[in-house]
């Protein structure tokens, strides 16, 4: 069995070529390899990714330079283009049907908005400590999670939040992705609840937004505009990342936490869930023609399973069913996520993006083991409601990627083989 390895050199040497968009654009030119047709809409068990791809060291260095103002956004994009192309190539070679750009231009899955929106500033927890009321509590969280405070960054609303330009939050990312693949496309966006919860910070945000609800109105409007623009451009799948909902349900029981969620003020869990459902439904209200998903996991910042949150999706499912979205993109490959039977009560109400590979381990999941797991779900779930994906991204945080591109590729390859077996059985 031979697996692909893609580096900037292989990308630039001709395996993949950047589209010259100044000449009207074009599609990915695959100089060698098999050019596959776009996924049929009716294909069962579509394989997709949750979003992020491991960042090579040279990209992280470039990201740091951009953040320090040592290179321009345009210079960074030139460098990042190669990383995106490599990410796409890995996904396509592995048989992924719905691809992302690997989120490699982003610092992480939600804080990148600070570069796209004005009035919102990326702040390190070490900078926020003077404003945190329960510092002792945060110290416990940092220790339990084994992370330094400088590694936790959150976008904080410090003024009225507005778009910086015409590129929206992800439109430039999407345009590049779309012009370099013929597969279906997915864009992950930070969910409205996550953005609101993490960005409203007492002492810093209340001048522009007296309450968190005030900020939520602007967040919803910005995301709605983004969704409409992505739909118009032909995006197939928009995934809202809402991992902090795990914190809502399990945060009080665990020392470990999502920093992005724990930073924000929060109320009773049921009120928080209602708030999250309302924001999501306001964001997608009346918009059809694009698949909406919500991704929720229990943490992807460390390879130490014991520092990540745990608990099944049961307490969240009633609220998730009230969200007007098509798919739940969930982690299920780790025992921390609980048993698959928890979905029995809500069978077929939503598509399930089933996590069947752990992005944080070196071992490659056996396709037959993945098949066995899906068969258990098929006992009470329809095949056309099941998508297959890893539990989370392979590089949620640019500087704390949880795996290498080679292993990520092999894991996706296994998922694709499992999907092929399942399709033959169906």
């Amino acid at each position, binding site marked *: 069995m031979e697996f692909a390895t893609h580096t900037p050199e292989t990308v630039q040497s001709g395996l993949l070529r950047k589209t010259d968009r100044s000449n009207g654009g074009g599609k990915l030119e695959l100089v060698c390899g098999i050019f596959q047709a776009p996924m049929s809409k009716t294909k069962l068990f579509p394989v997709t990714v949750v979003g992020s791809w491991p960042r090579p060291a040279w990209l992280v260095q470039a990201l*740091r330079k951009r953040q320090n103002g040592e290179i321009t956004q345009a210079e960074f994009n030139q460098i990042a283009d190669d990383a995106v192309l490599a990410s796409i190539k890995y996904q396509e070679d592995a048989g992924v049907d719905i691809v992302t750009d690997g989120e490699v231009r982003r610092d992480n899955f939600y804080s990148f908005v600070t570069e796209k929106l004005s009035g919102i500033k990326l702040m*390190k927890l*070490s900078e926020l400590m003077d404003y945190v009321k329960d510092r002792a509590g945060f110290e416990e969280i*940092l*220790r339990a999670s084994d*992370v*330094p*405070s*400088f*590694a936790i960054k959150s976008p904080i609303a410090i003024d009225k939040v507005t778009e910086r330009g015409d590129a929206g939050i992800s439109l430039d990312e999407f345009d590049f992705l779309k012009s370099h693949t013929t597969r279906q496309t997915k864009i992950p966006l930070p969910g409205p609840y996550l953005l609101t919860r993490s960005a409203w910070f007492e002492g810093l945000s209340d001048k522009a937004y007296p309450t968190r609800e005030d900020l939520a109105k602007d967040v919803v409007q910005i995301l709605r505009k983004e969704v409409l623009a992505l739909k118009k451009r032909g995006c197939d799948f928009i995934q809202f990342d809402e991992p902090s909902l795990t914190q809502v349900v399990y945060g009080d029981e665990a020392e470990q936490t999502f920093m992005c969620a724990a930073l924000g003020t929060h109320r009773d869990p049921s009120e928080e869930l209602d708030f999250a459902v309302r924001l999501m439904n306001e964001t997608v209200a009346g918009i059809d023609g694009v698949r909406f998903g919500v991704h929720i996991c229990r943490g992807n910042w460390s390879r130490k399973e014991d520092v990540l949150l745990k608990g099944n999706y049961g307490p969240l499912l009633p609220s998730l069913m009230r969200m007007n979205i098509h798919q739940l993109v969930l982690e299920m490959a780790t025992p921390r996520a609980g048993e698959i039977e928890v979905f029995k009560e809500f069978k077929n109400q939503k598509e399930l993006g089933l996590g069947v590979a752990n992005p944080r381990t070196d071992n490659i999941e056996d396709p037959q083991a993945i098949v066995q797991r899906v068969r258990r779900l098929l006992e009470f779930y329809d095949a056309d409601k099941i998508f297959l994906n890893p539990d989370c991204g392979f590089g949620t945080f640019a*500087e704390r990627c949880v795996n290498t591109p080679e292993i990520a590729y092999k894991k996706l390859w296994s998922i694709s083989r499992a999907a092929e077996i399942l399709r033959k059985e169906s």
Partner: protein
Amino acid sequence: MAKAEVELNGLRPAKIREILDSMRDNPDVLTAVTGPWKSRVVWQKGFKAKAYMRQHAVQMDEPEGLDAQDTAASAHEQLLSAMGSCLSVGFVLNATMRGVQIHDLEIALEGNFDNILKWAGHSKDGNPGYPTVKAKCYVRADADDKTLQAIWKAAVDGSPVVQTVARPTNIVTEFERVGA
């Protein structure tokens, strides 16, 4: 035209090198740096005290659980902080002298008392202090792991505070009653 001084990590490496060399070459500098270093701690009220060091002052208190007001960290916590701060200084010094750019540096320390009952007057045995102190360094810097580990080792081995805590230190105590 004067040559512009190059800064690294907020320090001037050439100037630091000059100071380090003068400690070796100039006995007066070495004497001044060697000490004595002084602190005067003045009791205020309850468990509160204030420490005065040169022109600086640091407040000390104890947690509310000890019927104190918790207006400041307690002395043993400040000992941990002193160790961490000293390690931070040593890390930055050693990194700068090796030309390594540091972006972020954080040191997390912790310890458990061996037998705090001795402090409470319930026991005559054991050590009321920390038998072990853990110190974990998190760093984001432009150097390979091997270089950074060497810098960390130099910081630990060269830390006056950490090495004071790590070795048996001769504490000379005196007592004097003042007034009636």
